[in-house]
């Protein structure tokens, strides 16, 4: 990639302004939803505005800034008409960017409780819209052209029933061909978990005390279970049961009796659910009417694995990447959540079998595999089973991304200082940092203060009283505040890249509309420049989005 020209300082660095921290969505925990960060919201608003217009973006940003609201309150805050807000909400719900839910509000003295519908903006799903080309690339690699086309249709429309998918495919084809091809494509996509049933359109959210207990305790029994955020509670209430999420029921009509019978792709023990579906047919929830949408969780799962493998390849070597890739491939089906801290324990023989399947692993000996697993830092269990700490790999990748920023922005000495404090994970005194990082004692304070001012370091003062009062400054890398700050800067940067692409294209709009035969001489040169610029900006966008996924921890 083309190097970035060195920055000369324009003026003195900013003083003390703090951006709103927060990584977005429900990541922070706590009893109420933590709003996305300042530039997270701006970026999300830009996406919605580009795709659906300013009115829809206004409603969306209102929900992102204020949290879940009723229709009435959205009207009040946006100062739009009721019908406008309703239409915008319909678009956002259709596109899986908003989830409705109902809540019970206790009445006053003598009044009964009342139920109202509120709308929750789904920040993550909005940001995922910029990843659609990456999703399509994954599907293209694994499935056929018909699946890709169907998948693209789901991306475009947000959610579709099988009936609508068939209608869409029918244009220019005979009915039965389109129907069979569409069903087959949908089956393949569902089996691969690229698509899923849409969530409940309006789940009811009980008051927290009435619901199931908060999330399970972590392995450390001393930690208190975190209360769920409202987004997590809504999504948990709305998400279909795991068994139903990928269930396909096709209605077939037999000639003899004209009765519809259901052919279903059922897993073991699913008959009870099939009966429940049968009983709901009159409500239009039979196979043809089930709403389907893209299952982003599957893609995030794959991207997380890919990021881990690439980090290991860059940081260690190809052998370690092959070993990790094999382990993740085996445990893929066993992992229920995207964010699994550790892979499942796997025997050396199981890993080796998987390694041998790939071209890169065929020449690998068992000893080489063992050495790679050691290099990966795998935890070795009984009977030579291995387990990898994925959380550690993700953290290392995140560290490298931030260290790269520090190096480019502040220089080599700041880089050493930052790495020292990041590894130490505790407060260190100025002198100690100076000695260990080999930074001149006359220069160290200047660099530390600069990093502190830009929120890369946390600082504490200690005053020692005695015959003479002495002040010591202690420094630390505090990832709980720094990581959200970096993520917010990334949202800012990705928004800037988007704006610049739009600006460059708009600037040359006439040139783009010019027929090719009329582009010659200087016009040809300008056109080629525009093409190169666009390529650079858009590839930077894709790479920065990878980094955003990394910091959001997928």
């Amino acid at each position, binding site marked *: 990639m083309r190097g*970035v020209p060195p920055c000369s*300082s324009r003026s003195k660095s900013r003083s003390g302004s703090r951006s709103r921290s927060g990584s977005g969505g429900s990541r922070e925990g706590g009893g109420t939803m933590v709003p996305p960060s300042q530039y997270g919201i701006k970026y999300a608003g830009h996406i919605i505005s580009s795709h659906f217009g300013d009115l829809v973006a206004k409603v969306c940003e209102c929900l992102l800034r204020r949290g879940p609201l009723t229709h009435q309150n959205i009207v009040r805050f946006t100062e739009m008409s009721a019908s406008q807000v309703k239409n915008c909400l319909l678009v956002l719900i259709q596109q899986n960017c908003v989830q409705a839910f109902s809540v019970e509000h206790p009445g006053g003295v003598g009044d009964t409780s009342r139920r109202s519908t509120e709308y929750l903006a789904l920040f993550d799903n909005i940001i995922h819209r910029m990843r659609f080309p990456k999703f399509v690339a994954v599907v293209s690699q694994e499935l056929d052209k018909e699946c890709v086309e169907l998948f693209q249709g789901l991306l475009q429309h947000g959610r579709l029933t099988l009936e609508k998918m068939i209608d869409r495919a029918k244009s220019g084809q005979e009915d039965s061909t389109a129907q069979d091809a569409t069903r087959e494509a949908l089956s393949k996509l569902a089996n691969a978990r690229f698509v899923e049933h849409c969530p409940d359109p309006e789940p009811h959210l009980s008051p927290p005390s009435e619901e199931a207990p908060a999330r399970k305790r972590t392995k450390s029994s001393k930690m208190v279970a975190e209360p769920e955020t409202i987004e997590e509670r809504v999504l948990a209430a709305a998400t279909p049961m795991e068994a139903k999420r990928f269930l396909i029921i096709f209605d077939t009509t037999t000639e003899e009796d004209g009765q519809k019978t259901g052919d279903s792709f059922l897993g073991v023990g699913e008959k009870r659910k099939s009966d429940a579906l049968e009983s709901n047919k009159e409500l239009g929830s039979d196979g043809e009417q089930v709403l389907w949408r893209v299952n982003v969780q599957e893609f995030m799962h794959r991207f997380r694995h890919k990021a881990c493998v690439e980090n290991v390849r860059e940081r260690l070597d190809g052998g370690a990447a092959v070993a990790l890739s094999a382990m993740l491939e085996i445990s893929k089906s066993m992992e229920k959540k995207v964010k699994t801290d550790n892979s499942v324990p796997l025997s050396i023989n199981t890993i080796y079998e998987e390694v041998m399947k790939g071209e890169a692993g065929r020449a690998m000996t068992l000893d080489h595999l063992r050495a790679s697993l050691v290099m990966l830092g795998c935890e070795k269990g009984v009977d030579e089973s291995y387990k990898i700490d994925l959380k550690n790999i993700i953290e290392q990748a995140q560290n490298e991304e931030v260290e790269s920023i520090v*190096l480019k922005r502040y220089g080599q000495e700041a880089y050493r200082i930052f790495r020292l404090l990041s590894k130490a994970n505790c407060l260190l005194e100025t002198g100690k940092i100076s000695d*260990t990082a080999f930074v001149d*004692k006359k220069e160290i304070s200047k660099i530390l203060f600069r990093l502190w001012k830009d929120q890369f370091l946390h600082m504490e003062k200690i005053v020692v009283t005695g015959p003479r009062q002495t002040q010591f400054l202690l420094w630390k890398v505090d990832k709980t505040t720094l990581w959200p700050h*970096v993520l917010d800067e990334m949202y800012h940067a990705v928004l*800037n890249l988007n704006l610049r692409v739009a600006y460059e294209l708009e600037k040359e709009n006439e040139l783009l509309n010019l027929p090719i035969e009329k582009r010659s001489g200087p016009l040809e040169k300008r056109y080629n420049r525009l093409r190169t610029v666009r390529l650079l900006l858009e590839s930077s966008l894709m790479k920065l989005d990878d*980094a955003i996924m990394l910091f959001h921890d997928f």
Partner: protein
Amino acid sequence: MCALSLYSVTAMGKRKRPDSKVPALSMTEQEKIVYNLIQSKQDLGIWSRDMKRETSLPNNVVDKSLKSLCSKGLIKEVVTVWSKSRKHFLASEFEPSSEITGGKWYDQGTLDTEFIDFLKDQCLKHIRNMKIATVDMVANAVRRSRVLKNDCSSQEIGEIVRALILDNDVIEMRSNGLGEFASVPTGRMCYKCRRSPDATKEPRVGAMASIPCGVCPQIANCAPGGVISPMTCEYYSMWLDF
């Protein structure tokens, strides 16, 4: 009192050398005050400004006394690591503490980056040759190469190796005694180069650091329509100058 103090042993164990040539009685009263204060600070010495405050003597008196004591060889001026311009004084019989000189890596109050970089290169070269090495192995290799006038201790080489880790040139691992770690006892910390010497590709630059916004010191002040904006950004213009 001056004679007694000349023979006493300091808390640091540095025995003051009696100097029969010291004309103890040739000092003025002010000079004695200044000299005693400097001597009491032993190997830490004292800044002239602090002297003026602690003795409450007029500035010109202190300055004159310092000049006189220097010319008599009783005290010496040293360069401190905090500021080259700061006048810092020690009694002649003391060697300045590392706290004021900066320690072994400082020369005349400035970090000796040339020497440090040279040592880093040497250590990196030996680690690369040995593929996997402990600090002691690296220190021995440096000693055997005889590139240094004065040998560095294992502790000093260890400091250099840890700086190489911070530079991300070297990675630290714990030996399991097998394979490439066979030469290192199990459980010992050892080091290997992060990249091979003939690696043509540069270390990977992060996605954020690869774009102007990632390295911009003004990102917090940047906004569409603002004085600094992505549309008018000069760094973007330079980056996209094809």
